[in-house]
């Protein structure tokens, strides 16, 4: 069996987030080097703050400032930091209960090694140089044994959470990396396309021919393996005329209007989708007979064009619409 195709697939997108009143105050506070908590009706102080009480479900808006110093409640050493993690060198993930809070905040602790970290150790916030109103405004935590002159510079100032120019939204990038494989059946299909042949697979049970093949019949639920060459000619079963450019970058080189058609290749039992060219867009019709147009080195036909044959009779393809 030929080797199954594989390729990296990276998907990444910047999502916007509206913060709502509580997260807005929390992140704006970080920008101003103030850590804000919420106070629940039963007197607990929660950091990071939440909009709704985890016990009573009541809305909570009572913001209070807590200290930028605290105590590690538990930790785990990260030997090999990954992309976009808070520190580029090995560090500890820590839960820190800030002084004045009843809950702990997850963040990174800068430490020379795991031997330098222990539950109960005192730490303080190391603020980022440039702060924008994001959790990364806390660059990380660092060991803290109190100020040498005896005074504590970390005393909270009693901030109420009212700010000029509050941050109301953030952008959160999501990124996923996969190794994608189309599998055995599609690999065979793609390899055949390199020779400009359309090779599908026939279901051993219902005898329907699938192009592209998926390796199994979605109706009968059985594996398919019998290869069947179809086309290259086919019939336009239905279509639309696309008049707007898709926002998707992969489509930006296609000029509008263009015809997006369903084409039943001769011998196939369901239509595939392709663009129609070589004919004015407003003359494309159901039943039009078409053939593929290849460009050098392309993996797929660039588009399909009329063959010049008479149109197919509706009854010959209506089951495929």
């Amino acid at each position, binding site marked *: 069996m030929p080797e199954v*195709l594989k390729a990296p697939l990276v998907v990444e997108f910047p999502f916007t987030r509206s913060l709502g009143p509580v997260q807005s105050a929390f992140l704006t506070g970080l920008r101003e080097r103030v850590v804000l908590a919420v106070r629940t009706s039963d007197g607990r102080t929660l950091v990071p703050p939440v909009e709704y009480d985890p016990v009573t479900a009541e*809305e909570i808006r009572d913001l209070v400032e807590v200290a930028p110093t605290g105590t590690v409640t538990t930790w785990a050493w990260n030997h090999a930091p990954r992309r976009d993690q808070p520190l580029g060198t090995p560090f500890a993930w820590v839960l820190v209960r800030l002084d004045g809070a009843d809950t702990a905040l997850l963040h990174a602790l800068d430490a020379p090694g795991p031997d330098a970290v222990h539950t109960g150790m005192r730490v303080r916030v190391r603020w980022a140089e440039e702060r924008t109103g994001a959790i990364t405004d806390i660059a990380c935590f660092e060991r803290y044994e109190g100020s040498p002159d005896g005074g504590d510079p970390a005393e909270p100032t009693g901030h109420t959470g009212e700010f000029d120019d509050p941050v109301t939204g953030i952008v959160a990038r999501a990124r996923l990396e996969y190794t994608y494989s189309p599998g055995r059946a599609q690999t065979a299909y793609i390899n055949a396309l390199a020779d400009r042949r359309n090779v599908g697979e026939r279901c051993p049970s219902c005898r329907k021919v*699938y192009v592209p093949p998926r390796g199994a019949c979605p109706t009968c639920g059985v594996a398919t393996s019998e290869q069947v060459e179809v086309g290259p000619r086919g019939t336009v079963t239905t279509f*639309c005329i696309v*008049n707007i450019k898709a926002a*998707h970058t992969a489509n930006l080189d296609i000029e509008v209007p263009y015809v997006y058609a369903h084409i039943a290749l001769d011998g196939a039992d*369901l239509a595939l989708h392709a663009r129609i060219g070589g004919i004015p867009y407003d003359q494309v019709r159901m039943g039009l007979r078409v053939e593929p147009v290849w460009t050098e080195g392309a993996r797929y036909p660039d588009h399909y064009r009329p063959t010049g044959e008479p149109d197919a009779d509706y009854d010959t393809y209506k089951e495929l619409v």
Partner: protein
Amino acid sequence: MSKEPVAVVGVGQTKHVAARRDVSIAGLVREAARRALDDAELGWADVDAVVIGKAPDFFEGVMMPELYLADALGAVGKPMLRVHTAGSVGGSTALVAANLVAARVHGTVLTLAFEKQSESNAMWGLSLPIPFQQPLLAGAGGFFAPHVRAYMRRSGAPDTVGSLVAYKDRRNALKNPYAHLHEHDITLEKVQASPMLWDPIRYSETCPSSDGACAMVLTDRVGAARAARPPAWMLGGAMRSEPTLFAGKDFVSPQAGKDCAADVYRQAGIADPRRDIDAVEMYAPFSWYEPMWLENLGFAAEGEGWKLTESGVTELDGDLPVNMSGGVLSTNPIGASGMIRFAEAALQVRGQAGEHQIDRARKVLGHAYGGGSQFFSMWLVGSEPPDA
């Protein structure tokens, strides 16, 4: 042992808009849930379980958002579960919640669905650039427009039918304070003059992108007896699915949709839906789906659905009003859209639909579909409880 009858005693939704930048996702769902509880005159402690639905996680890029929404929905210490069936999810979510009551697992269930499309990217979330595949993506409109053309060919419907639906739905929306689009100056001529996006689908025949949430409180007979306002009773509910693509798939009238409707009618004792059902709130994201679904749901013979639209039967004052709320065509927070259909059906039979209330709403169908016309969920609700 027979099933416990299920009643809708609370309905709440947000005012659907293009962007709710003033609230987090938690704040958005909270608003709808609070309104549903207020309608039911219940508090958080009266709810036994929470069932939530939304479109795929990648739309907003928050993986499993239900985890962090537990506090906003008063679900701490209670069962909370998430339902996921693409665009039909709002309907399936309501049905999962209803089944928990029908099975007597819980007495009172809060069910909710949402979408914040302003913070999401449905196009990107659904259309990842897959290696080795030809990039041919033309958006949801490009996916559905060829099927609309196939319907037009098959039925011989005049080109104008789609615009009639859009004109009707957008006018209905003017009577619904929660609808997203309120086009006060809408005319049929404006709909017909709007640009062709994916010929044969025009701009004005296409749903908007909305931020919104919808919630319902479902309860048993005991809960219904205590209800502050008339309940809506579930008379039948079903879900069906089929593959996106297979040899013999009928995109114009999918088999799964027919089977789903038949199951609902069997449960509810509906012999002739056109005669026995008073109104339909259906998931029609493009105007032409009204006549297509009228046929798929058995309200008209194959190829005849457009005649109901053209003759005014589906108007708000017609014999079979369709999409009294203004429909998906006027409001589309995708994950919530199915539940809004179900909720509208309930509002109508409860007599709580306000300015878009129809007369004689005794039995109303709520309908949702999703994916590549592959997931269907429907319920029929009535003003009277089901026969024992």
